[in-house]
Structures are given as structure tokens and as C-alpha cells.
């Protein structure tokens, strides 16, 4: 049995749902459903969709690989200055995406500090490539993962990690076998947030990676382009994006990320 939810909470909850649902419903109503299949099946749209899904998936992986360690470091170390670092992580959250894209361009572009080094030493040029899309999305989406994980880490406390240490587990083992598994529900949320943010990324991508069909033009870019010429087809594409995203998240979200573990033995 679960704890009951206060009835009054249903009022704001339904309001909140309405705020989310009604506009989208309005959008659907306004859509010319007859044209929909043709619009969606357009090759450009499908290629954009495919690109969006692959890049968002890749940047979500990058977010997890980089963001989980960062969250753990931020939540579990007591070095002075961690408070400042915590604020630093928020930078990409606040930066207007276009400016974020510019910042990446200034760093990784041909004339950028790192970009120049890469170009000269390895002949690698990042902008205008699919890799640039992934980088832009990761830059923008990672803070969502880090911040939500950090909250969960600090909320959960570290008693199990301490138990693991007394059992001889070195920090890496503790991380792998205790911290991460116990973090799974929060990680699930964080992955959803960063995947969604990456999938919807527009400003930083266009600024840093450009927009070339099949290479860097993700679905949001395609939507924007369409919206300049034909709003209806832009809306249709957005609906496609929504449906795909919700399907991906609802289906692919591993069950393991769903459940919580009841608190330790005996406390029924």
C-alpha cells in the first residue's frame, strides 16, 4: 500500500497537466491532419528525424558519462570552492542557446583556442559536422543531468556508501555497485531531461554546427526552417518530434530506472 495523496493536490496537479496538455491539444486541433502524413513522410523530415534521434542519443550518453561523475564529485567532496563549481555548472542553463553556440564556436572553431590546435595537430575541424551537433547538445543538456543528480545524491545521504567502505569496497567499487544503482531512479529522470533537452536543442546547434541536410540539420532546425515558409508543416513536424520523443522516452526508459527500493529490511 502506498501513502495516500491529499485530494487538494489534485487541483494544482490537474491545472499543471492542463497547462501542458491544452496548448499541445490546441496545436493538434489546428493541424491539417489530412496533409500530415505527406508532410511527415517527406525525405527531408525523415532524415532530420533520424539525425535528431541519433545525435540526441549520443549526447545523452555523453551527458551520462561526463555528468554522473561531475554530479558525484560535486555532491560528495567537501573541497572549498565546490559551491562555486556548483554554480558554474549552471552556466549553460542560463546562457541563451545562440550565445552558447557562439561560445562553442569561439572555442572549437577554426580560430578558436582549441579548434586551432585540433586543426593544426590532427586536421580535425569540428564545426559543420555531426560531431558539432552532439557537442552543442551535450553542452546544453548536461547541466540538467548534473543538477538533478546532485539533488538526489545529497537528498539520499551516503550511509550505504559508508557501509560499503567498511566492507572493503574501494571508492570505485562503491561508486559502481552502490552509488550508481541507488541513483538509478534519479538517473532515469536526469536522462529523460537531458535527452529531451538535446532533442529540442536549436539555438546552439545552428550557431555552432550550422544546418545542412543529413549532416547537421536536426528536426528542430527543420521545424524552424519550415516555420518561416509554412507554419502548418512546421507544426506537423513538431508533432512528429513530440510523438517520437514520447515514444522513445516511454518505451526505452528502462524499467530499472522506474522502481524505488523500499527502505532496508524490517522496517515495514
Amino acid at each position: 500500500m502506498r501513502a495516500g495523496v491529499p485530494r487538494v493536490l489534485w487541483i494544482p496537479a490537474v491545472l499543471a497537466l492542463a497547462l501542458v496538455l491544452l496548448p499541445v491539444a490546441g496545436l493538434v486541433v489546428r493541424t491539417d491532419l489530412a496533409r500530415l502524413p505527406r508532410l511527415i513522410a517527406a525525405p527531408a523530415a525523415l532524415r532530420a528525424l533520424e539525425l535528431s534521434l541519433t545525435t540526441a542519443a549520443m549526447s545523452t550518453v555523453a551527458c551520462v558519462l561526463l555528468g554522473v561523475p561531475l554530479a558525484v564529485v560535486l555532491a560528495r567532496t567537501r573541497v572549498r570552492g565546490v559551491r562555486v563549481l556548483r554554480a558554474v555548472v549552471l552556466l549553460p542553463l542560463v546562457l541563451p542557446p545562440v550565445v552558447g553556440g557562439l561560445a562553442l564556436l569561439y572555442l572549437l572553431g577554426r580560430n578558436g583556442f582549441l579548434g586551432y590546435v585540433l586543426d593544426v595537430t590532427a586536421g580535425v575541424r569540428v564545426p559543420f559536422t555531426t560531431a558539432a551537433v552532439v557537442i552543442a547538445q551535450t553542452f546544453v543538456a548536461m547541466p540538467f543531468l548534473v543538477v538533478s543528480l546532485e539533488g538526489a545524491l545529497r537528498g539520499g545521504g551516503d550511509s550505504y556508501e559508508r557501509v560499503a567502505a567498511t566492507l572493503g569496497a574501494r571508492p570505485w567499487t562503491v561508486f559502481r555497485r552502490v552509488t550508481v544503482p541507488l541513483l538509478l531512479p534519479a538517473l532515469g529522470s536526469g536522462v529523460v531531461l537531458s535527452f529531451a533537452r538535446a532533442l529540442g536543442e536549436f539555438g546552439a546547434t545552428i550557431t555552432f554546427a550550422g544546418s545542412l541536410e543529413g549532416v547537421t540539420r536536426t528536426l528542430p532546425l527543420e521545424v524552424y526552417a519550415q516555420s518561416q515558409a509554412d507554419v502548418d508543416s512546421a507544426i506537423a513536424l513538431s508533432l512528429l518530434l513530440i510523438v517520437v520523443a514520447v515514444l522513445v522516452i516511454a518505451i526505452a526508459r528502462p524499467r530499472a530506472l522506474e522502481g524505488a527500493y523500499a527502505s532496508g529490511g524490517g522496517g515495514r
Partner: protein
Amino acid sequence: GDRGVPLNVFAAASLAESFGALGRRFEQDNSDVDVRLNLAGSATLAQQIVEGAPADVFASANESTMETVVAAGRAARPAVFATNSLTIVVPAGNPRDVRSLADLTGAGLTVVVCAPEVPCGTATEQVERSAGAELTPASEEQDVKAVLNKVVAGEADAGLVYVTDATAAAGKVDSVAITEAAAAVNSYPIAAVEGSAQAEAARRFVDFVLGSAGREELGRAGFGTP
């Protein structure tokens, strides 16, 4: 000025600077009016006006978006108040020695242009066609500022932007005039919005933009005159 009735001018974002100046000058002459600019992409503005936005004046960056507003019955008799045409921009000093559109088709040159869906992209296609040059751009940007930024950042070796954009970025980029630019002159129409609560002031503002003051400010930004 903060006093006076608000006059909502929905203007294409590329007009930000000129219309900012024009608005201030108009307020000096008409102390009863407080000009408020709503700056966004032309398509967005048109969409807002069609959806009943409280616009008094609409200045669009292309004629097709104005047409959708006219078609929706929210504007009548638009007049062209400025024109714009494409130019090539290259990083300052023109390191790759670009002289014409044809030079951009060569291999090894990173060129960015506007996407065909947006007005500057349509113009680019027209220019290409009339010059008989086929560009293979590294990117088809969603708006002209994105093209400009790529060149300013040195990421692209060349880009096609409006003369006004090149003017605004003078010093950071050099521009190379396109002889075929005349093939795709972009017209900027302005109209008072139907059903405006400030119909009279709106008409006065439209006239002001079409008049000598407008010509002066717009000319300063690099716009052509119709």
C-alpha cells in the same frame, strides 16, 4: 518616451537598429505617442498578427509574409519602404581573395548561405541561378545573422548576406559586391494593421518611415530605396 499612447510596431528583427532610431525620432515629433517595437522574425510577427496580436504597424522583411497578413484581412495597401540585396562577406582582409560569386564554387572554400526556406535563402537561389554558379555550402543557415556570425568567427571563408548586415559588421568582415545581386532585390513592405486602436498614429508612423526621415535612417544602415 514613456508618456503617450503606445503604438505597437511589429518590425522584422533585421530592422532593429533603424526602427529603434526612427521610433525615437518619431516620438520627438509626436509627444502623444509612445512607440513600442516588437522585434522578431517576419514569419513570427505575421503569425502573431493573424492570431489577433495588438499590432498597429507591421514592417516585414519580405513581401510574402506581408501577403499572409493582408490575406488574413489584417493589413491593407502595404508599401515598400526599403530594399536590400545580397553581398558576399569574407573575413577582414579577404584572406582567400574572393572576387566574385564564381570564386565561391571552388573546392576547399567553406561557404555558408541561408536556407532556401527563409527569404535570404530564396534570394541566394535566385542569384545563383542568374549567375549560373552552383554553390556547395557547408551549411544552410536559418537566418542571415547566423551566416554573418560564421564569417565573423572566421569559421566560414565566405557567406552571402544582405548589404545591411555587411554594413553593420563593417570592420569585422569585408564585403565583396555581387554583380548579379540585382536579380534578387528583397523588398521591405510596411502597412498599418487593420483594426488598430491607434489607426491614425499608425498611418502617421507609416508615412514617417516612407518619408525622408525613414530614408535617412534606413540608408545609414545600408538599405536601398525603392
